[in-house]
């Protein structure tokens, strides 16, 4: 980063604070991207430790390490933090670093709002983490926050509502910034349909965020007033309806699922062409498929609620609409495979993670298709099958794409090549560990093990033990990732401007590390 600071002075801007004040007051998109990514990394280890505590308790039947209530706190906070504190901030970090670089823009459209969007996040993170220390402990009602259970909890439930509000506000500010930047600040000649796919996926994601975050804010505000001010939105005894919360929540949370995966599609769509040394196959159909997925995401929410007791027509509608999502998702997978087809492939760590993403995300897609079939979903709803499904999508999907993206752009950000040997160790241990954790969970769900239970019947023992072993392999492999990142920041082989032989796009035309200010004069497209 010191190189970046020198580059900055060379440009002769106003003197800038140093130390902690530099990071608190920064409006530079690269600084803010770095902050998002470090915040996400810290939260990854916090929420990952909770996952390991969960898996340790589940290593054998009986209660050994935790109390059932504390176990529920762990599962709830693991979910909330992984979604709002790890995956979403990481994608925001990528957007901050890469969107201006890819578009040839000097910075984000609203730099000061960008600073705010980041700096309120740690406040939300602290509210969530501190709640473990409060009377009654952290939130234990599940990340889905279903009333009336959520109404029963103590003070930490109110803090969590506040934290969700803050995180939603941060996402909305970030999204406004990204949309405005993409629509207004592209280099001359860079039309929307020439834009890198990562920008397209984030543009669509930002619209999803703006459309759904206020819905979540409304839902949790109603919880807040039900809890504290005597309203009965979700209390049947007062004329309310607990199921109404689920409708509102999933109207937010299904698009949220795509918020967590569309930027991943974007990252992978940048990486595969680079290492196949061949342009992305079906660029236009990729854009249309992304948009179709986003639009469909608004009409499928009740597939999370097949067991609440819907009319036949409702079940059929939500089953058919959900199955339809397989079509554009399939198009994406076919396009990635076609991009690799007859390329000139090399397998550096970013490419390995991208290939694992395509394979394993598709397994999550298939289990999603199984769950879309309403009668099968009714059998498998709220079992470990669902846990397996969404971890295939969010770990080998979202998280692996983040790893891929970090390895891919780290040389551009730091100016140093990462350690390829360590990177490969990280990849293989992660991909093997991840499958050992989550694949057996399909069998647990099929055999009838409910999710969110701290103790289980004896027939579930073997698969739980396998999963726990895998979890510790997977969890501790992430220390290698930490080492690779820190090592690349401190030094290493110097990276060229283009970094990768097959890399295309404006971000590879600036030196590595990218200077503190780039594209102060708009680039001319060839």
């Amino acid at each position: 980063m010191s190189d970046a600071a020198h580059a900055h002075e060379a440009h002769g801007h106003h003197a800038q604070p140093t130390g902690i004040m530099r990071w608190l007051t920064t409006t530079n998109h690269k600084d803010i991207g770095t902050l998002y990514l470090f915040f996400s990394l810290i939260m990854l280890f916090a929420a990952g430790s909770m996952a390991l505590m969960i898996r340790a308790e589940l290593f054998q039947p009986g209660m050994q390490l935790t109390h059932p209530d504390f176990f529920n706190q762990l599962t709830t906070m693991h979910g909330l933090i992984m979604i709002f504190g790890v995956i979403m901030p990481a994608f925001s970090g990528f957007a901050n670093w890469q969107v201006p670089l890819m578009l040839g823009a000097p910075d984000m459209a609203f730099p000061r709002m960008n600073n705010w969007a980041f700096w309120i996040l740690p406040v939300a993170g602290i509210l969530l983490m501190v709640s473990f220390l409060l009377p009654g402990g952290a939130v234990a009602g599940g990340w889905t926050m279903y009333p009336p259970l959520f109404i029963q909890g103590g003070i930490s439930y109110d803090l969590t509502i506040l934290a969700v509000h803050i995180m939603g506000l941060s996402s909305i500010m970030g999204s406004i910034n990204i949309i405005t930047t993409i629509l207004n600040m592209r280099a001359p000649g860079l039309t929307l349909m020439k834009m890198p796919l990562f920008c397209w996926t984030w543009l669509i994601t930002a619209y999803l965020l703006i459309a759904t975050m206020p819905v979540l804010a409304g839902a949790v505000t109603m919880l807040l007033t039900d809890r504290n001010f005597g309203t009965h939105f979700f209390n049947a005894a007062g004329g309310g309806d607990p199921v109404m919360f689920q409708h509102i929540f999933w109207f937010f949370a299904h698009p949220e699922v795509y918020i967590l995966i569309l930027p991943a599609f974007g990252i992978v769509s940048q990486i595969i062409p680079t290492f196949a040394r061949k342009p992305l196959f079906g660029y236009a159909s990729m854009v249309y498929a992304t948009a179709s997925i986003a639009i469909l995401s608004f009409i499928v929410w009740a597939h999370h609620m097949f067991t609440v007791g819907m009319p036949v027509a409702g079940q059929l509608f939500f089953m058919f609409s959900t199955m339809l999502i397989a079509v554009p998702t399939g198009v994406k997978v076919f396009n990635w495979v076609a991009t690799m087809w007859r390329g000139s492939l090399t397998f550096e760590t970013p490419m390995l993670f991208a290939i694992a993403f395509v394979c394993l995300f598709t397994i999550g897609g298939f289990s999603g298709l199984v769950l879309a079939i309403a009668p099968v979903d009714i059998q498998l709803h709220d079992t470990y099958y669902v846990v397996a499904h969404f971890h295939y999508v969010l770990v080998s999907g979202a998280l692996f794409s983040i790893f891929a993206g970090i390895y891919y752009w780290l040389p551009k950000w730091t100016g140093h090549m990462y350690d390829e040997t360590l990177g490969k160790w990280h990849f293989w241990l992660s991909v093997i560990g991840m499958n050992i954790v989550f694949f057996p969970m399909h069998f647990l769900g099929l055999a009838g093990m409910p999710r969110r239970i701290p103790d289980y019947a004896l027939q579930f023992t073997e698969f739980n033990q396998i999963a726990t072993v895998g979890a510790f392999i997977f969890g501790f492999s992430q220390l290698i990732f930490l080492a690779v990142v820190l090592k690349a920041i401190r030094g290493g082989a110097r990276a060229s401007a283009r970094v990768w032989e097959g890399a295309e796009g404006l971000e590879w035309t600036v030196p590595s590390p990218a200077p503190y200010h780039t594209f102060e004069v708009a680039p001319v497209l060839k």
Partner: protein
Amino acid sequence: MKSIGQAGTGALALGASQAVLADYAYNLQTPASQVAADVFQLHNLIMLVCLGIFVVVFGAMFYSLIKHRKSVGHKAAHFHENTTVEIIWTVIPFVILVGMAYPAAKVVIDMKDTSDPDMTVKITGYQWKWGYDYLNDGISFTSSLSTPRAQIEGKAAKGEHYLLEVDEPMVVPVGKRVRLLITANDVIHSWWVPALGAKQDAIPGFIRDSWFKADKIGTYRGQCVELCGKDHGFMPIVVEVVSEDDYRAWVAQKQGAAQAAAADGARAFEVAELVERGEKVYLANCAACHQADGRGLPGAFPAISGSPVATGPLAGHIEVVLNGRPGTAMAAFGGQLSDADIAAVVTYQRNAWNNKMGDLAQPAEIAAARGGAAEAAAPAAQ
């Protein structure tokens, strides 16, 4: 479901392999009802289709990963679109999905048809047990986990049905259409018995219905599957499917027990008698939160030993047990326990641990505290 068997290409293999797969730990539980069997078939069909697609797509990908490597000297081609191919791989998945949607829709319609039941049972979810009301035979009871705490805490060897055993199973006759009316008393629960193919959320304030018809005599086990608080993992479901004769005998026995329990409400008890009975009621209903030693869990569940309620005026104590504390996990037990049981548990709480009050509550006082609606509100004791 014959049509599904004929629809898919893999269906022939399916029919033969189902019996083998069914007892295997890698698939859904052995179905014991037509709906569960339909779901089982549907799942196998979809898995085969997914497996086929997976092999084709990733076969192509791995072929490419091996043959089109730079290290073997492969030069990159430069094609990047092909409208025909793109249309084909949009249309083919769509057609496959339609093929899946048709049999699935038939099962949906079948599952939702709760008409013409032979009998109806109302099921109520409580934190953390299940209540069963047989609307045709006038039987009511609650069903809680019977696994001893010692097994859970690792102080005793775990039994064969660890965590999947209850004190009072639901009993139904074989081959009868049983309609379930499912609701909850406090938070959302979900009633699920995998082998019977019936799962329905239990939602407070609303009654939803489901149904099953068990094909075989046997014991079928399930669990609550909607997170409902601390002891969500400890409220199993056991359904005993018995012959029609055995069912009639069970009904007669339960009805006799209910009459005996009703008689309890009318007589007066001694302190010692109530304390002894109250300890059992306490362990079954209160100890999950307030703990067997009455000390509660600081910050989450208050202590009863030395609490102002249990050492204060009797009327206030009865009021809390009957009506609960709205907005907290403290349930209203007035609708769950008989007058005699509430009198017993209140007396126990006032005389156990450090609470040496020496007084007692009689069933008649509980009936009076209910405000005249005693007969209507109090279900029969277990």
